[in-house]
């Protein structure tokens, strides 16, 4: 459709508004009369920008940063937990430093040099059947050792921050640990007085081992809550390590008494372990 040419009236309005524009331009160039309007608009623009940003972008950003920080926190928490468990293992060894190793010179040298690189490798839990551990006789655990792959860990002692858990009996991709509570396990124990020795067997119950002895031979008076230590006679475990306390004493007959020992260490507490290497 054809457009009509501007009428005289339109021409006049164009000329008028062009002149007004020029006048405004001249005024703006020569004075600061419009500065307030410009500043007001700038303030409005900035405020609008921030409000729009606050409404639209910030919620999305906060959601993203929230999820990201949550992931970071979880990762950080995991790392801290691992570091804490490791420090617990170290603390456990430090507290037993004079007696834990068969070769006491290792500790002595470390102490003299101020170099506490204890000879144990860190292991992580791969699997344990808690139902089997609570209900049944076979108490086994599988761990993965983060250490020297060439080293042999057969019969090495596995411990956590609470105490001794058992020994490695099978080496494959993962290491099978025979726990103290397994009924096939036998642990030579003694009392602090060194006047009572016994072979404590796994009870098949979580956290308990039992020891049968002849009271006519071992006349030492045993009380409940009395601490029990390893005797070191089996050749696997070092001596004088506290493993638990007497929980109950049952006189089966005149020739046999059974003591039930509650262990200090529970394999279900934590997923990080130490494996001693001699």
């Amino acid at each position, binding site marked *: 459709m054809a457009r*009509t040419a501007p009428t005289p009236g*339109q021409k006049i309005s164009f000329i008028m508004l062009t002149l*007004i524009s020029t006048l405004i331009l001249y005024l703006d160039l020569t004075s600061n009369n419009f500065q307030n309007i410009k500043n007001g608009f700038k303030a409005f623009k900035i405020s609008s920008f921030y409000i729009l940003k606050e409404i639209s972008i910030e919620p999305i950003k906060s959601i993203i940063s929230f999820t990201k920080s949550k992931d970071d926190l979880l990762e950080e928490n995991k790392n801290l937990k691992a570091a804490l468990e490791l420090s617990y293992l170290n603390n456990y060894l430090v507290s037993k430093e004079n007696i834990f190793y068969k070769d006491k010179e290792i500790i002595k040298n470390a102490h003299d040099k101020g170099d506490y690189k204890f000879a144990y490798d860190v292991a992580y839990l791969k699997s344990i059947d808690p139902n089997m551990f609570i209900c049944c006789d076979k108490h086994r655990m599988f761990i993965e050792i983060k250490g020297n792959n060439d080293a042999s860990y057969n019969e090495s002692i596995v411990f956590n921050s609470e105490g001794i858990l058992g020994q490695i009996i099978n080496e494959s991709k993962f290491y099978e640990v025979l726990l103290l509570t397994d009924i096939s396990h036998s642990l030579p124990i003694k009392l602090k007085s060194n006047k009572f020795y016994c072979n404590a067997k796994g009870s098949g119950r979580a956290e308990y081992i039992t020891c049968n002895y002849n009271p006519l031979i071992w006349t030492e008076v045993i009380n409940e809550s009395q601490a029990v230590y390893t005797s070191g006679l089996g050749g696997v475990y070092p001596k004088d390590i506290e493993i638990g306390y007497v929980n109950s004493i049952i006189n089966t007959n005149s020739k046999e008494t059974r003591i039930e020992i509650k262990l200090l260490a529970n394999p279900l507490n934590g997923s990080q372990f130490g494996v001693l290497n001699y």
Partner: protein
Amino acid sequence: MTSLFKRFFLIIFINFIDQNLAILFSKLFIIIPLTFLAYSFYVYKSDKNISALEAFSFGFFVDLISDTFFGLNATIYCLVTYFINQNANSFKLFSYLQICLFFGLSASAYVGFTQLITNLYDFSYITLLVSSIVNIIFCFFIALISSYFPQQLNIKL
């Protein structure tokens, strides 16, 4: 009314792109006045004459949002609107090349005029020359796109 708001929002959007591109191209002595070209194109494409008040309003609004001197764009927009209104029917006889030259050169005039007002002491002929060439090429480019993809762009030159 809705249409007017739509146009104002479009002007704001194009001006936003314009200002961002200006930062990019200024190092190459190029000024492409996208807002001015878009407005010219709107006047050119319109079926009816654009009133002087509308031209003045748009110009004044562009002055406000682009933070230039008040009246600068208002004056130019009034002049270009009048000129396009005056020759709206004549344009139909022109070829694409002539129309592109017209818009390219009017963009160059806009650049020259705004530079005279806003940047008098550092007025650069290189900027003016390079911008003229680039603006003409830019108009050709738009015309080519609209010729090859008329449906997609919905632009009729």
